[in-house]
């Protein structure tokens, strides 16, 4: 059964439709890459899938639950427990250290302290930043920041991980490291991944590739 579904989703800004008739079924543990030129609506689609924005037509279902009808509080709860997000520009909280950024979703979920500490240790080691745990975001390199962001997004074990150009701001080596991490961790946790990217090589870690153009998914893409 699809963990995340988009059915006939459309979005417009003022009178201009930027997305039209988008359909998507994302299976549990599946990794999907979303490719397309700049401005084709990839990030907007990702925001709709993550419940950060509302579609103007169609429906998005997470575990069968429609996101478009959910209250802001319910949406926040779903984002906290079932969805994880990674941004191109990392968006780490500058006033929290690397490990504090990582544990933040767990604190928001109200996990017990012991469990938080165990999970934090596990993840920080998993992304290879045990030695940088106490560093401030401003003291981390781009690759290190994105590794923290990946760990933070996966901390609560989300069903779906949404990644927006996760390597767009990184050099090739760092980018590859982040991609390996994404593939490995989602595999291990059984999380589905939908990744917006420009890069064909980045898309190789995915099981399926979808192509977008002018706000539409091209048929026959895989």
């Amino acid at each position, binding site marked *: 059964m699809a963990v995340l579904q988009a059915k006939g989703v459309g979005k417009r800004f003022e009178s201009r439709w930027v997305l039209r008739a988008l359909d998507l079924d994302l299976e549990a543990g599946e990794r999907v890459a979303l490719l397309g030129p700049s401005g084709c609506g990839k990030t907007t689609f990702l925001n709709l899938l993550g419940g*950060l924005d509302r579609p103007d037509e169609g429906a998005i279902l997470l575990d069968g639950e429609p996101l478009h009808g959910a209250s802001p509080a319910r949406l*926040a709860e779903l984002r*906290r427990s079932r969805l994880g997000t990674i941004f191109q520009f990392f968006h*780490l909280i500058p*006033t929290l250290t690397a490990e504090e950024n990582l544990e933040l979703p767990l604190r*928001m979920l109200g996990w017990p302290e012991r469990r938080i500490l165990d999970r934090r240790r596990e993840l920080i080691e998993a992304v290879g930043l045990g030695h940088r745990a106490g560093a401030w975001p401003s003291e981390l390199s781009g690759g290190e920041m994105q590794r923290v962001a990946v760990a*933070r997004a996966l901390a609560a074990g989300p069903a779906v991980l949404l990644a927006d150009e996760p390597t767009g701001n990184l050099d090739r080596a760092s980018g590859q490291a982040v991609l390996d991490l994404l593939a490995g961790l989602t595999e291990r946790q059984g999380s589905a991944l939908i990744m917006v990217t420009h890069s064909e090589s980045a898309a190789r870690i995915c099981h399926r590739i979808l192509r977008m153009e002018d706000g539409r998914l091209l048929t026959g893409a895989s």
Partner: protein
Amino acid sequence: MTWLARRLVLRALLREWGRALLTLAAVGLGVAVFLSIRLANRAAVASFEQFTQGVGQGSDLVMRTEAGPLRESLLPSLRPLTEWGWMRPIIEGSFARAGTLEPFQVTGLDLVGLGSARDGQMDAPTGQAPASGTTALYTMIQVPDAVLITSALAEEGLRPGDFLDGFIQDRPVRLRVAGILPERPNQPRLQRNLLVMDLPAAQKALGREGELDRVEWGLRPGARLVDLEAEARRLLPPGLALEPPEQRAESGRAMTAAFRFNLTILSLIALAVGAYLLFQAFDASVNRRRETWATLRALGHSPSGILRLVLGEAALLGLLGSLLGLGLGWLLAQASVRAVSQTVNALYGASAARSAALHGGESALAVGIGLLACLVAAWIPARRAAATPPVQLLARDGGPAPLRWGPLGLGGGLCLLLGPAFAYGVPAPPGVAWHAYLGAAFTLLGGSLVAVALLPLFAWPGQGTRRWRLRLALRPLRRPTGRHGFAAAALTVAVGMATGMGVMVRSFERTVLVWIGSSLRADLYVAPLGAAGAGTQHRMSAETANAVAADSAVDAADRFQMLPMVFRGRPTFLGSGDMGIQAARGGLILAAGGPFPGPLLAMRNGGLHDPGVLVSETFARHFGVKVGEILDLPVPGGTRAVTVRGVLADYGNERGSLILDRPVFLAWFGDERVASVALYLRPGQAAEPVAARLRRDHPALQVRSNHALRAQVTTIFRQTFALTYALEAIGLLVAVLGLGQGLTGLALARRGEIWSLRALGATRWDLTLILMLEGLGVTAAGLVAGMGLGLILARILVDVLNPQVFGWTLHFSIPWPFLGLFSAATAGASLLVLAPAARWGSRLGADREAEEGA
């Protein structure tokens, strides 16, 4: 305005109209407070100066006595002076209108003499055009209690033939309006509350037959002032002084200088706190458009061009806000002029300003200051926008760098040491205490810097807590940015000023209450109905005072008289009271000279052989007089040597006073009139029935019980400081608004973080709470630092500024309930402002990303 400026500046203002309106309101409010105080002040002091100058306008030389009345019998010996010009004998007194007890100045002039003074034409009382018609002159001379009124009063409906009911001295009078004083073109309008009487009628009405207050001369064409002055000095009997009229005006201005300066400083504080708000507004506005500046730079726009754009926007807002402030300031001035006038009245004498005109110079100054404040406030953000490389401006996570709070704290600590050192350590002449103001300014600066350094302390509750919202909210305070710093500093200054003034006023109030509690021991106090303030000229005749004292219930009556006098060229007061009664029943507080009633008994025992005097603390400070010193006291016909026996705590006026024992005063001055009588009743006599009886028998007297007088003093005291409270409240309001503005800036700076938190599942409420808690952390730092700062400022105000400027020693006392209430009010006001700002901030992320996402 260029194409780019129109599109970037005007469109930004229209698009961000809420922020633009807030900035306009901040400028407008600051300018309005500044202007209104200046206008009200100007009106009240101009009114006071007009009374001070009285009919002195138009004359070239004035003669008066240093102490006591000027005898009319001296005039024949001065006749030779008419060779150089005309001579104008004058007497002055007060009239209180029935019902309102509104004060009027009564000026008596020799109208017959004036009729032939200048080329056969009657000279009007202010050296202006002649009074209208010979009928008026005839009525003035023929009808006792006939007066000329000003056109300003006539505009209120009073016409020749009408009557003015009220009180002169201790008797009810009905004055008949005989005519209207004409206004002369190109001359200041006559003071509304001026009544002119014929000299003999005025002398009779005032109960001062044969007496004058001064004589004025005007030069004939071709005559020289030096010749007139030389001849006048040759003929001048001892105890008389000559002065040019401008010296009188100057003395009036000098007298009120401290008062005017204090009010101006207070209004500038509102503007200074407003400048913090403006800085935050411009900072947020510039920060919001950082991508715009970066793009412009990337397209080749010069840094100076960007500087001009930002400063141009600031100038536009400054100008519009200042113009808004002009109207608001004028309206506020109308509301505050009576309060200022009342204070001038209580401290210095007559002022009856009822409205304040919009003054060109003051308006230009206010607009200039508003404009300058905007340009200064926009300078740092403008410089930053112009100087930061485009790549850095475009960096999404490149928020403002954290402040180096350690050096700031050290600098602040240094300023906090320097401030009191200046205030306490630098000796200064009496009057306006520059060193104390400079010390206070250093202290203010130090307090605001320390507030910034305190911010990391308020991050402590967020340390190690499992409450993620609290941790996220307070963590930024560990490494505060300029926005945190400015918000905390602005609040610190406002809270500090309000606390300082509040503690000072309450120390003052407590001191005065202790003083009146000790000084006012009599059961009843009797004075003429119109008497109020130090400058009152209402007096009771000896007969009335004797009749009051003769009441069967009265055990002892202390007759008190107060006269204006000139000592060592400066105006002060000479008082007299019964030292025997005071020693036996009173409770004067002595600052020096030995324990009460020793100095009073020494005065009584010294009598006329070894006359002594008490001086008020203000007098002692202003003239540098000490106990045991022998003073040459001006008396009618010369001077008398008197020994200073003691220094008296006295908060009645700021010109200071000397007090003689009544028998000595009577022997030297022969003036049996009294300003007030303190009645000590026989044992078992209740005060109220006696008071009722005295009121019935003497309708022109006010009879107050001890309790009522204390209540009245307290009320007057609080009225006097009403304006101060209003200014404090405005300053605090501006600071709290600044806090809200600061929080929106902080939210903008954290928008990436807010977006991340939303993506991580934080609700709007979580984000609102986080931002509010952050704002409250800043509030707490501002409040704590402000309270500390306020207590230091209060000590400077109480220990240095008040004794230096007013000559009053106050006992420092901290009003804890007031401080508690004030803190709660500040925290409450902050919450009210922070809540909507935080709510606004919590919505930032989604909109922003949605715009960029497509």
